[in-house]
């Protein structure tokens, strides 16, 4: 038999087929629609607050007087909105649909009875999910970027734009980690709800451990900063570095999380009995 490229033409057809499944389901479409609408919502709210349309005080002063808006800052708010809860939740859901749900409804069985190594099947699904995340980011940025660039006045420097642009790129890396984590949990569960609960419980446990590490650090029991930065929850928030300063430890953690989860998920997927 002729040697074939493991990431050759068939692999990309597999990715396209998985992406087609994602984009033909309500969950995938809703995710992209929310991605495009969130920046508009953030833009509208920001303009409302800036224009004094919100009659609220903070420390005895109107909120509008404390609120100075510029393009990069607003694009940063949009990025925060994009990465806060709703869209990551959708990303976890569609990832679980592609593995856990397909296992539960036996459609995975038909794919795995075809002449492909299982790691290729899992990698195709992962690549399709990453592509969906990239489309979501491009959609948000494609709507939010022009809004910020064209309609918001204020101090702007190229450095500020570069910073927030890198934040958007970094959020794709965070999505890559989240998808890998979800695929790993999907090898343990055959229901989307089970995977969602698994991811949420896992990140809550991560938060608790980081809290304990912080206490240990305050008590000077051992240096905990780098260790905390390597934890999954912190790693998945590496994109926040655009505002607070980039933390290489968080990116190292993100890399380890992504590769580690993919490696374990592949190992489990490879050995899984498919009924």
């Amino acid at each position, binding site marked *: *038999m002729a040697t*074939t490229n493991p990431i050759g*033409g*068939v692999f990309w*057809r*597999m990715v*396209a*087929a998985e992406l*087609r*499944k994602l984009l*033909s*389901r309500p969950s995938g479409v809703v995710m992209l629609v929310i991605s495009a609408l969130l920046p508009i919502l953030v833009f509208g709210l920001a303009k409302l607050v800036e224009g004094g349309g919100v009659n609220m005080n903070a420390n005895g002063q109107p909120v509008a007087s404390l609120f100075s808006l510029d393009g990069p800052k607003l694009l940063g708010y949009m990025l925060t909105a994009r990465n806060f809860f709703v869209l990551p939740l959708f990303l976890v859901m569609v990832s679980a649909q592609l593995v856990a749900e397909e296992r539960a*409804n*036996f*459609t995975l*069985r*038909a*794919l*795995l*009875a*075809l*002449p*492909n*190594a299982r790691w290729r*099947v899992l990698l195709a699904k992962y690549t399709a999910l990453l592509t969906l995340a990239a489309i979501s980011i491009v959609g948000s940025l494609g709507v939010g970027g022009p809004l910020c660039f064209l309609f918001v006045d204020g101090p702007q420097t190229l450095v500020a734009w570069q910073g927030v642009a890198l934040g958007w790129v970094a959020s794709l890396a965070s999505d890559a980690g989240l998808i890998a984590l979800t695929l790993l949990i999907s090898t343990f569960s055959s229901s989307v709800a089970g995977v969602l609960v698994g991811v949420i419980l896992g990140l809550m446990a991560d938060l608790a451990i980081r809290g304990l590490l912080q206490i240990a650090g305050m008590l000077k029991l051992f240096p905990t900063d780098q260790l905390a930065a390597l934890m999954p929850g912190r790693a998945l928030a590496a994109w926040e570095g655009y505002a607070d300063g980039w933390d290489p430890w968080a990116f190292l953690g993100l890399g380890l999380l992504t590769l580690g989860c993919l490696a374990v998920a592949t190992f489990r997927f490879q*050995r899984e*009995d*498919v*009924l």
Partner: protein
Amino acid sequence: MATDLAISVTGLTRRFGARVAVQSLDLSVPAGTVYGFLGPNGSGKTTAIRCMLGLLRADAGKVSIFGESDPVRRLDGVGAIIETPRFYAWLSGRANLEICEAYLPEHRHGQIDEALERVGLLSRAHDKVSGYSLGMQQRLGIARALLGRPRLLVLDEPTNGLDPQGMRDVRELIRRLAQEGMTVFISSHLLSEIQAVADTVGIVLKGRRVAEGRVSELLRASAGDSGAVEIELGGPDLNAIRREVATLDGVSVLPRDRPHPGARAQRAPARERAQPRLGQPRRGAGRLERARRELREPVLEPDRE
């Protein structure tokens, strides 16, 4: 590697905890034949098929398909249905096949229309699968298995959910595919289904193969004096006929899940008694339409192993 065997299974064993589902199973499926894999429900047929297709890991044994034992490469040239086929219900039948085709090697692309036409679904190809009946989904499953013109077609209980016409269509399709040179491996718990299409049969009980050979040879071997005869019942009031037959000495009514309403005469004298009685028009009970010698029943009864 050139080989005359489409499937060669040696010592295949698979356990689920303490339960042994398949035990030291040996099978030899000649290329270009229709091989019937026969056994009652729970005898390990589907587990064995899953092991052959690499869906389950075998605890022991060796599987090779057309001489290839690598778990991925041996599937090139194989199309399969395992139990009830499942699909992405929100997509059309055609879209489902396109997704499946994307996973096939390039040399097996471009036969979606042909596969749909073979199973009579071309006109409904753009309908969503959620609107398909069970029988249509079964036929779509066969179309999916036929993608890329496989050399070996593995069909696990392919007539499940089909009406009598659908069952006849599937049998006809299997015969046509066999005439075209395709090897067909069909599993079933129905004697009549295997007998209707298979050249060679392997009989499995409690995970072990108890007989293998050409159907005609097994039939000859079973044609002793004590050979049971199965008779097909027909008539306007089938329930009345079943009640009538049940009263006859030496004749038992077959369960209703059989493809044809039938009864079994344990010995030839019983059949001779049954024939004229059922044939009497005064009772309106119908008549014996056909008597067929089947594979000997004891082979399928685990207690008589």
